């Protein structure tokens, strides 16, 4: 217990954003609206996204000089947490990660153009996965073709691929790691293959980049460290979204347990249901504490080891809390829980999807062991 970093702060700005986000999500994403979007093409309502952009949320992590409000990742956390709670889908996390990538790795030129666009609601998405393993090496390549850059390879499970205005594809250029910015009009529509996700509120697609040619200034060199930091931001944002969803799952269970009777008693009076429900609360509380600690560190320091520890712990805990909650939500609803009509299915499906965004629990624990159990 020596030197354990326990920083945890919550600013006025975060608080204001939180209140606004809660109200917005509640008003714009009731369960009927969520269900209506399940079968939609993009998975979200463009008008809602426009409203969110107007509220400034697309620019929260973008410096004022590029049209953002520069409140930082820590202010984005309460927004995505509430989106998670209300299952409100919009490309906010997707674009925020793209913004961070450009902010930390981009040239001045790229920042000038794309950060401003992102602040205005342009949708960008990071294309990094090539197989199921988030820890796997990059094989997609960028090749110099007479001053232009030609891409060879494909990426899978790119978030909001169909809605994206541009992609940032992680490639090898000779021995370097690079991010290549590809605008969506450079990709033929049949090169984007929409995937079928277990979470029907979400969208992702595989992208075939083979033969795409871009200008040399669309490519920036990146370090493994900066890619790791981007993945940590991704993990933290998804942890917050998952934990918001976990709190909705808990509400959903509590509401059933306090209204449904069986054998003449409210079922919530049975400890076999009551105690695991308390355990969900405890697991969710843990996730929340870890998330706001990580959020604090993203703003107060520049991704030191403590930040990495915090983000990884937050994601591992958020994953496990929601997996447990989703599973119990279905079970505790009995026969009702076995139907598509019962909202518990939305939560259990989100849980399966969310655990794999930017690393499952075992992945993060593996890296935590490296960080925490050194000699």
């Amino acid at each position, binding site marked *: 217990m020596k030197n354990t970093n326990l920083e945890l702060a919550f600013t006025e700005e975060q608080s204001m954003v939180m209140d606004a986000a809660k109200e917005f999500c509640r008003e714009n994403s009731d369960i009927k609206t969520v269900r209506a979007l399940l079968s939609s093409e993009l998975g979200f309502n463009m008008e809602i996204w426009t409203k969110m952009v107007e509220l400034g949320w697309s620019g929260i992590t973008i410096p004022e000089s590029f049209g953002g409000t520069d409140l930082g990742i820590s202010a984005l956390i309460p927004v995505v947490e509430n989106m998670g709670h209300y299952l409100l889908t919009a490309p906010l996390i997707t674009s925020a990660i793209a913004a961070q990538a450009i902010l930390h790795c981009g040239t001045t030129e790229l920042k000038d153009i794309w950060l401003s666009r992102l602040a205005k609601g342009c949708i960008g998405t990071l294309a990094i*996965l090539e*197989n*199921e*393993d*988030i*820890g*796997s*090496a990059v094989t997609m390549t960028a090749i110099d073709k007479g001053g232009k850059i030609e891409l060879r390879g494909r990426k*899978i*499970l790119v978030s909001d691929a169909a809605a994206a205005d541009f992609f940032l594809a992680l490639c090898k250029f000779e021995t370097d790691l690079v991010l290549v910015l590809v605008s969506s009009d450079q990709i033929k529509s049949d090169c984007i293959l929409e*995937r*079928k*996700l*277990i*979470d*029907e509120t*979400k969208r*992702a697609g*595989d992208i075939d980049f083979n033969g795409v040619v871009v200008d040399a200034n669309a490519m920036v060199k990146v370090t493994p460290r900066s890619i790791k930091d981007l993945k940590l931001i991704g993990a933290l944002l998804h942890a917050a979204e998952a934990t918001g969803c976990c709190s909705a799952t808990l509400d959903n269970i509590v509401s059933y347990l306090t209204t449904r009777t*069986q*054998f003449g008693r409210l079922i919530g009076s*049975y400890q*076999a*249901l009551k105690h695991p429900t308390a355990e969900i609360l405890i697991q969710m509380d843990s996730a929340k504490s870890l998330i706001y600690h990580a959020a604090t560190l993203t703003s107060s320091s520049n991704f030191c080891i403590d930040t990495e520890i915090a983000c990884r712990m937050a994601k591992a805990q958020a994953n496990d809390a929601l*997996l447990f909650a989703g*599973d119990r939500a*279905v*079970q505790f609803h*009995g*026969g009702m*829980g*076995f*139907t*598509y*009509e*019962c909202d*518990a*299915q939305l939560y*259990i499906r989100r849980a*399966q*999807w969310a*655990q*794999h*965004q930017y690393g*499952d*629990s*075992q*992945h993060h*624990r*593996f890296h935590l062991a490296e960080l925490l159990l050194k000699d």
Partner: protein
Amino acid sequence: MTNELRYDETDIDEFRKEVSAWLQANKPRDPGFLLPQTFLEIGSEEVLDFLREWQFKVWSAGYLGMAWPREYGGGGLPIIYQQIADEEMKRLRVPILFNVIGLGWAGPLIINMGNDYEKKTYLKNILSAEDIWCQGFSEPNHGSDLGSIQTQAKREGDEYIINGNKIWTTLGNFAKYMILLARTEPKTERRYDGLSFFLAPMKVKGISTKPIQKLTGEYGFTETFFEDARIPASSLMGEEGWGWRIAMLTLQYERGAEAGAAGGPAMTPIYMSDLIAMTRKITRENEPLISDPVTRDELVKFMIEEKAILLGEKRANVPQLCSDYPRSLSLSHKLRTSEHFRKMRQYAITLQGAKGGLYVGDDEAIQGGFWQRAYLNNFGITIGGGTSQIQTNIVAEHVLGLPKD
């Protein structure tokens, strides 16, 4: 049944070889869709037709209903033959024999207490899968408490008029007959006394079904509505008021061929060997998942649990080894297996990395989304037939003698 018939050990060995050879030669090819693991998972005509054809084929070959009477389509053989056929079908993992309510519930009931007309009318078509059967016990909002059944059956001349609602009717939209539990006497001192048991036709005016979409997004159950539906008075099984007793009787047939069921696997179990096979094809931190020590340790934990469950089935047949709590293994079996499956299937998804987020219908999903569907469908067994919470109470109270809640 035909327990008293004699048989020869050599015959038995020969028979096992024969059935095994036949199954290997006739096992259907991959139909291009995920095969149902249980009979609760038949949501389309396409799947139904496939399974119907398979059951017909198995019966035609003589490997179903082997211990049922010959005159009603059975084989008239000692049950050991069916048991061996069942073992081989499970071992070779052929598709399920789907007409479960007929094969395992209605059929044995009719053999035991049906009249000659009923035997002639129903038995053969259950085996051949010509007639699909469903079960009408559960009602909306009453969980599995049969005492509170509200569906009414009112005698009027040669008919009963049925009014009410049933839920969780597996194959309800495909079934020709239902074993129906309904109330013929609205007010009785004990709630169970007013119930009667019917072999009810489904295709009559006033009976309609509404498919229930499962959390998997698929179908497999219906809600069944009775609005002044008229069924022949001859559908009554036994006498009025016998309903609860007969229902309890049918529940005992579930236990497989020994108890009188026609045989055949009603579900395709998923074993740890399947999960291990999966881990061989997945990469984690640039290495094969199967070489990850943490995953290996978890897999071994599940394997110990699986082996203990399978050995428990064996030990249950050795009374001296069950002398402390004689009913323990049998009363906890459903709880143990269904919870083991739940945890193991959930873990399988966790192991899949980014592809764990894919679902049935995606051609990149690992094994076509098999584990995702298996996990979600598994709630059918941790909830249906008494939730795991109720099962735990049963074990605690009936095995350990702990007090009721």
